[in-house]
């Protein structure tokens, strides 16, 4: 009699576990990126307040091959503001509020180009374990040297035309990239464990698509001006607008 009741209680406990587990899986928004646009997301523009600093000229004459193929002389890219005050190269991302990540890194790779002895793009965002293809479009030889805090450091020479790729295993916002041969070269790679991030374009605009409904903390990171955060709630199929403004 006693054994039977124990058996029954074990079975019912297991059943409860299965039902609860199924409910939990169904209720928690999945982080798997939707290939089709669900319509919900966050759009916005990041502005620079006040008079924009003028980019300064970079002297690349130590390597004459750097100016080959450049239409304009190289200038600094730490703060890039357009005529409307839009701030480029800001990484905007969901920093809190997502369920545990279950998504696989995308199959497509992202590309970092070295052109005219500068990085294109200057700021790149990608997912952990996604493939980063590094291209040297210059005639000169570069070395690509990420100096991460949370990933393994790596430093490879890349002559023109030699393919090179790399992955970063862990989230890190953002990894500085340098070229020791051309010390003025500076770029950043932001690595995320989820797909909800964007980098502002030359007008300061960003668009984070397919965000599951929820309440999130959104962080904007700029290499020189630091970070800002805002809270936002996004409903199902809702396209929210969120703007940030940075000043020096």
């Amino acid at each position, binding site marked *: 009699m006693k054994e039977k009741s124990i058996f029954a209680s074990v079975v019912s406990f297991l059943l409860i576990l299965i039902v609860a587990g199924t409910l939990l899986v169904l209720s928690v928004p999945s982080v798997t990126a939707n290939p089709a646009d669900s319509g919900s997301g966050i759009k916005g523009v990041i502005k620079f307040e006040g008079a924009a600093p003028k980019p300064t000229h970079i002297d690349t004459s130590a*390597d004459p091959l750097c100016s080959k193929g450049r239409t304009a002389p190289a200038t600094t890219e730490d703060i890039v503001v357009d005529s409307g005050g839009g701030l480029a190269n800001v990484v905007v991302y969901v920093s809190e509020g997502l369920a545990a990540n279950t998504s696989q890194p995308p199959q497509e790779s992202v590309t970092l180009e070295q052109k005219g002895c500068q990085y294109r793009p200057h700021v790149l965002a990608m997912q952990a374990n996604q493939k980063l293809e590094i291209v040297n479009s210059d005639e000169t030889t570069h*070395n*690509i040297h990420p100096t991460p805090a949370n990933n393994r*450091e790596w430093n*490879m020479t890349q002559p023109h035309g030699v393919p090179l790729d790399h992955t970063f295993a862990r989230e890190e916002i953002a990894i500085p990239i340098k070229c*020791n041969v051309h*010390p003025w070269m500076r770029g950043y790679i932001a690595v995320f464990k989820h797909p909800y991030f964007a980098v502002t374009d030359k007008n300061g605009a960003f668009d984070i698509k397919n965000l599951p409904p929820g309440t999130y903390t959104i962080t904007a990171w700029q290499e020189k001006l630091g970070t800002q955060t805002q809270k936002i709630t996004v409903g199902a199929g809702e396209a929210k607008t969120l703007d940030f403004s940075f000043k020096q």
Partner: protein
Amino acid sequence: MRWSFVRTSIKFASWLVVLTAITASAATAQESHIGKLTGNAKRGKALYGRYCIYCHGPEGDGRGENAPYLNPKPRDFTKALFKCHSTPAGSLPLDSDLYDTISRGIHASGMPSWKPLLRQERADLVAYIKTFSSAFEEEKPGAVIPIPAEPPDSAESVKRGAALFQSMNCWQCHGKDGRGHGPSAPTLTDSQGNLIPPFDFTSGRQFKCGDTNRDMFRDLETGLDGTPMPSFATAMTPEQRWDVVHYIRTLSDSKKHVEVKNDASGQ
């Protein structure tokens, strides 16, 4: 009665599994394996406190009390980045690589050879040094890079090496005459942000990770992690790397030296 016995045994068995797992993982993380030697981190800690702590610091972060007076700075073990290793660029070193570094020392730096210590003691130190970073538990070292047989050190090889020294931009840091005075030299820093000069090939000093041609070939393949010296693994073929080794050898010997000529690009 029977059920309670089953439950107790299940509980006991699961504790046993957990305990075994914990001890097993602790054992591997606290050991080093160099040939037939097995190093022990506990013994290594005592040796570290006696020989290494003054430069590398109690936390293994390279901030020992002697560190301010040293240049280059003592290695920060918490980053698990090591100059000398037989594995690919950016990979963890093998236990034997760390053992070799302790035994050889790092030439042209404050790190002496620790050959006066017993082999077992050096293996124990390797086990302890690995405990400063979780990387040794989370990742595995890459495959050992192959070093092919060295072709003859001919005038043609030196000439090709001279051209590569130019096109690979070695001269941007090491200078056209190999004295370490290239245009980028004053800007170079190590991973801790300390200024670090490029190697002066004319100095006749021994190379940091060993002074044979094979050591130099390996340096070109792996780079020196944590410094501005990159890997040339995909940038040059093995034959080209041997050519560069042969050329660099001429820089410390004025009779053999071949001047790097300015090419059409005006470099």
